[in-house]
């Protein structure tokens, strides 16, 4: 019944790991060919792989794991998907209904444990309700603000037979509002007509809303000529080659993007949530601006930053209405003032905040990514990342022309996300170039998935910037904790080339800047999974940086400015 429901929901791939409490479902999977099952090596990997699949396709990712440890291992992935609003449907086995509560073997209170880290979850106690719950689970995961859901199915419910119902979109009472209020939209358009220093601040909500939202955003930005910046999650919604593009904003965002946020007079937030990595010090955040906020989740509005023009609705629907209203009112903007605003932004751009000096003896991490960008640009390319310095450098030095090409753990910041995510992306896009930009420490957290990559012949490229350090932790210890590098380096790293070979994959090591291009090309040209061990400068810091407790206009641009910058008040922030 579960397999039938998956087929009816259009599911073609399931990431999972079998165990005692899901054997009946695995037996069904064995006897059909419509739904592919990908055997991961750890349940956390299954959820991240499903996230990669979901983000790169726009379809929900599906996971199947067993009870007890299978379910608890999925918790990190669920929390990650909740923070980043990624639609995931997780099925967990459970001990039979008559044994629930008896501390049976591999029993855990799965719905209890996952209640705060899912959008919703269900324990199914009657086979007759199973198909209805599964369809509802897909509906909830993908409607409104997307998120992870979990369906816990006891083994006796799996064995029993019951009546199957087909999916019906109207069956659910859960029908979030997608159309924005026209009065508010008109108010925003009126503000846009008058704005002298407007800026679009876009986020993952644009990507989640679907390709139409990105198209409409491009149309609106190009028609108005307003500058646009994006969060880490929203990269690719507006093309990096677009003329109004400012680059990413936030803690490690670009100088011009952050200063534009600080000095603007109209801030239009589209599908972003004023995360603390974006705002810096709240009371100094964009002090001169009227703030509009478009979000499908009413709880995002006024949560952190007080909003002047709140619009609850789906990004694509609201943008469509905004364009209609703006056109019907005569396509007006304050073009003269906006042109001046662009000139000011161009002055900031001249600071060239991402400039770095390439090393001639050791490879700078920025240099490695700049070369990776140069050698892969224009290809059918998907990028995933782990979490840390390399993630921020990847966001700064790689460019994205389209949505759904960039998969990274933003809200939760999960080390170990990128590798399994790259597997999920490659499953969905077998012919594309999928690269996981990693740090060696993050990568080791889910390295067991090499087994999955090799088994399914997934040519994922693991581009490891190896500084033998927890780079971001080390950076904070340098800036904040008197250069006392407490437990932020690895003394016993594996030989990554041998490790790759042990799994039956290819390993490449590169330490000389002169070899970098050839080594990257060798990685790309190899038809199979590659671990690329790129030995980089060990003490490089990630700039620009807004230190904790500081405002956007108090950015640090380089090493010389870092002494004593974070005061006691900022030190408690993470």
């Amino acid at each position, binding site marked *: 019944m579960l397999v039938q429901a998956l087929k009816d929901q259009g599911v073609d791939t399931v990431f999972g790991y079998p165990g005692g409490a899901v054997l009946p479902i695995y037996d069904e999977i064995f006897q059909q060919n419509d739904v592919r099952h990908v055997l991961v090596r750890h349940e956390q990997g299954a959820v991240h792989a499903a996230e990669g699949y979901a983000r790169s396709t726009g379809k929900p990712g599906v996971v199947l794991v067993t009870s007890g440890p299978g379910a608890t291992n999925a918790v990190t992935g669920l929390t990650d998907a909740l923070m980043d609003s990624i639609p995931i449907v997780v099925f967990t086995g459970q001990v039979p209904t008559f044994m629930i509560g008896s501390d049976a073997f591999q029993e855990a209170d799965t719905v*209890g444990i996952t209640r705060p880290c899912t959008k919703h979850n269900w*324990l199914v106690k009657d086979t007759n309700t199973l198909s209805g719950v599964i369809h509802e689970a897909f509906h909830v995961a993908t409607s*409104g603000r997307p998120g992870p859901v979990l369906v816990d199915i006891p083994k006796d419910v799996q064995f029993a037979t019951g009546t199957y119902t087909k999916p019906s979109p109207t069956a659910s009472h859960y029908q979030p*509002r997608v159309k924005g209020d026209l009065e508010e939209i008109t108010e925003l358009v009126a503000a846009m007509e008058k704005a002298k220093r407007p800026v679009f601040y876009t986020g993952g909500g644009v990507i989640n809303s679907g390709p139409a939202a990105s198209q409409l955003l491009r149309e609106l930005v190009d028609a108005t000529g307003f500058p646009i910046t994006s969060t880490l999650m929203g990269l690719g919604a507006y093309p990096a080659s677009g003329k109004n593009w400012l680059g990413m904003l936030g803690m490690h965002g670009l100088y011009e993007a952050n200063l534009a946020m600080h000095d603007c007079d109209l801030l239009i937030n589209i599908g972003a949530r004023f995360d603390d990595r974006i705002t810096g010090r709240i009371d100094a955040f964009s002090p001169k601006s009227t703030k509009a906020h478009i979000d499908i989740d009413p709880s995002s*509005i*006024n*949560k952190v930053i*007080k*909003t002047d023009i*709140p619009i609850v609705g789906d990004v694509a629907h609201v943008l469509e209405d905004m364009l209609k209203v703006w056109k019907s009112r005569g396509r007006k903007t304050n073009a003269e003032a906006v042109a001046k605003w662009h000139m000011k932004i161009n002055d900031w751009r001249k600071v060239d905040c991402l400039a770095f000096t390439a090393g001639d003896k050791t490879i700078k991490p920025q240099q490695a990514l700049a070369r990776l960008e140069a050698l892969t640009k224009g290809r059918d390319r998907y990028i995933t990342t782990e979490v840390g310095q390399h993630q921020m450098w990847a966001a700064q030095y790689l460019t994205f022309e389209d949505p759904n090409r960039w998969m990274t753990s933003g809200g939760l910041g999960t080390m170990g996300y990128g590798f399994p995510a790259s597997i999920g992306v490659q499953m969905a896009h077998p012919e594309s170039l999928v690269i996981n930009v990693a740090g060696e420490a993050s990568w080791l957290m889910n390295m067991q998935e090499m087994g999955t990559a090799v088994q399914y012949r997934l040519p994922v490229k693991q581009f490891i910037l190896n500084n033998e350090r927890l780079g971001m932790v080390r950076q904070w210890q340098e800036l904040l904790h008197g250069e006392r590098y407490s437990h932020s380096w690895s003394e016993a790293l594996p030989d990554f080339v041998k490790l790759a070979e042990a799994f039956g994959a290819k390993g490449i090591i590169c330490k000389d800047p002169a070899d970098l291009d050839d080594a990257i090309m060798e990685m790309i040209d190899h038809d199979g999974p590659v671990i690329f061990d790129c030995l980089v400068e060990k003490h490089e810091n990630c700039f620009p940086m807004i230190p904790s407790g500081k405002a956007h206009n108090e950015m640090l641009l380089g090493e010389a400015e870092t002494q004593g910058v974070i005061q006691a008040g900022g030190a408690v922030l993470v």
Partner: protein
Amino acid sequence: MSALHIKKGATKHSAYNLRPSFSDVQERHTIAVLVENEPGVLARVIGLFSGRGYNIESLTVAEVDHTGHLSRITIVTTGTPQVIEQIKAQLGRIVSVHEVHDLTVEGASVERELAMLKVVGDGEKRVEALRLADIFRANVVDSTLSSFVFEITGAPEKIDAFADLMRPLGLSEIARTGIAALMRGD
């Protein structure tokens, strides 16, 4: 739904009213939440309050519509206007929640609570307890030669006042239901 005396969209103060004035003043609000009557729904609501650090002063829950599988949760909470708005928005996004109503801002409402108080004593104190109970319109629901159990219904302040009076007269135990509240009028 009309049997529940709640009309959807009957007021402009819905969960989509997103323009609160931010101030630091702590306000006390009574919020009625209509939820799907399913296992775990109370845990979802309580988990939201504990997980996000909101206060619960009083909470009552019971099924109110058997055929529609609906329960009504009445929560009394305190917070700044911004926090109260967040609480309502967060409640509204729980999938099992059908409606959220802030009775404090949506118009006049009535709040009642039921309490049972056990008063142990004899002689003059016993007579005085009975006399006060009469004034407060509390009923005697159990009595022995040395004790009474009173039942009293009313606004929380009235119950507080009655309990204060009973304390010197031998109050030994008290059980309160928490607040149930409804909008006035139709």
